[in-house]
């Protein structure tokens, strides 16, 4: 189970390295220009026009950004310390069962968690944020744990032998060395958050997904397409930004 987790994360971190970083923003700009041209040039009926009004689109984008931001910040605040705690020696026997549960939890459907939580505590933005972060916690938690635990023993031994305290070893050696793996987990989390945020509209939390959903409800295919393009562009842009941040923060070794 552990090997599965590690391999999958290593996989995403390696393959997500954007090799042509400039292509993504160009693609997104082209999509946005196309959407803007369509909205201004095409003959839209009043319902469609109201849905595609710039103020409405921007409001939806703002909601989307807030859901992603809040779930990511809360997720990091929870997953990072939890990963560190689980990496401590006393948590050794908790790790294997937790990682096994975590591995099975990969099959948890995001939509199921969101709907279930809405049924249990009510709809709304806060419910969506909590559901989304519950769904995306695992990659960061697991990668934080794996990053610390897989620090070469010779390095931690040397650090201890030179008189670093446990906290100093964690802060100066284990965490800095684990940065690439932790960042990869963070990026996976972010991508999951952006993707799941599109479902937030289903429980009344708005976001870009609501363009898609209202287009579907009202049978306006152009709104569905534009909503999808905007949602996808948002996701690509976030992932692109994250890749740049990841590159900037990864220490030279």
């Amino acid at each position, binding site marked *: 189970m552990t090997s599965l987790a590690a391999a999958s994360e290593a996989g995403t971190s390696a393959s997500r390295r954007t090799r042509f970083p400039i292509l993504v923003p160009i693609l997104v700009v082209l999509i946005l220009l196309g959407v803007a041209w369509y909205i201004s040039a095409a003959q839209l009926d009043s319902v469609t026009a109201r849905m595609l009004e710039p103020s409405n689109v921007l409001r939806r984008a703002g909601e989307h950004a807030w859901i992603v931001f809040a779930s990511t910040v809360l997720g990091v605040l929870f997953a990072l310390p939890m990963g560190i705690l689980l990496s401590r020696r006393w948590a050794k026997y908790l790790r294997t069962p937790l990682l096994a549960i975590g591995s099975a939890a990969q099959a948890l459907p995001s939509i199921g968690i969101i709907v279930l939580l809405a049924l249990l505590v009510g709809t709304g933005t806060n419910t969506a944020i909590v559901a989304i972060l519950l769904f995306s916690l695992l990659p960061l938690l697991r990668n934080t744990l794996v990053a610390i635990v897989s620090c070469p023993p*010779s*390095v931690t031994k040397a650090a201890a*032998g030179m*008189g670093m305290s446990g906290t100093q070893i964690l802060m100066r050696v284990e965490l800095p*060395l684990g940065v690439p793996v932790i960042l990869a987990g963070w990026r996976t989390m972010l991508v999951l958050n952006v993707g799941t945020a599109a479902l937030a509209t289903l429980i009344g939390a708005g976001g870009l997904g609501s363009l898609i959903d209202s287009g579907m409800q009202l049978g306006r295919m152009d709104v569905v397409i534009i909503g999808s393009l905007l949602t996808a562009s948002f996701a690509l842009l976030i992932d692109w930004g994250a890749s740049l941040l990841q590159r900037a923060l990864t220490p*030279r*070794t």
Partner: protein
Amino acid sequence: MTTMITLDDISKKYPGSARPAVQNLNLEVEKGETLVLLGPSGCGKTTTLEMINRLVTPTSGNIFINGRNTSTLKTTELRREIGYVIQDAGLFPHRTVAQNIATVPQLLKWQSERIEERVDELLEMVHLAPDEYRNRMPSELSGGQRQRVGVARALAADPDVILMDEPFGALDPITRGHLQSEFLRLQDEIHKTIVFVTHDIDEALRMGDRIAVFGPDSTIEQLDTPMRLITAPASPYVENFVGGDTTMRVLGLMEVRADEQSPSSAEIETVESGTPTNEIRIAGSEVRDILVTDDRGRPQRWVLADALDDLSGTVSDLPGSVPVEIEAGSSMREAAGALLSMPGENPRAVIVDEDGRVIGALTLADVQRAIAESGVPPSEQVGERV
């Protein structure tokens, strides 16, 4: 000699294992000496080492460093006062060479200028040009260079005691040899108290002032000087561990010196190049081979006595042969090897000092005499046991 480290009746038993890893061990390490802990893997030598800086806590017994009981000290502070070098160096891969070396000074909150100065000084000390290596990452270094940085890092805060756990174990034999000699030279300058763990008998003989041979049951079989260990093994176990090759090992422990150890030195006759040949005949009453040197005393070639019949011109005109040089301080084993590979009935090597100046000569007769005086049992001298 004062005692630096005392292990007083130390035992270590890991939970869940039947036999103790270390049992009732008593050991004293003198100030300024290199004590080697030698033994097969699993004999408890590394556990013993790690109990000194309390990476491993003894189950019973006390350890004193400089008279202070280490169990009364804060472990992190204790460890900052002790240098520590391990196999593969254990460098921090995300920090530069300079940052690695600066680890302990930073923990001790030195001023940054002082740290920078110290880092450069240490890099010089381990023969890495500071300007070139300061900002390199460990991954950009060879194994030998990494290990030098590891040594520099251990020396950073000028600790009195250094613990080394198979420090050269991961290196190829040639690099290992270089680093061993360099470290010996360094130790001559800094005189640290060193506890050195190895399973390599040759390394132990070379590095140690004294060697503690660990038996399989985690006790010390013999604690003695390298020479005594070879010539007077205390038990069949030690004899077996030290192995055959007694003669060569003894030679390996002896340094080439241009004194009474090599009587041939007294007989060597040197002449500066350009000296007219007829002056030599007057100077020496008896005609012998002479060694032609340059104006700084460095050997150029041997001129055989027979050739000196030609009295016209200078020594530089006479036919001769290129001399084999041996630097003083290298091992007799190397010297013997060089002599044995030379042609002729009575091979003769020139002993030079660090600057390459002639200070003596060495023949096989000198080597034999050295063996005879070393105390190796005569039966062992004949041939090497298998």
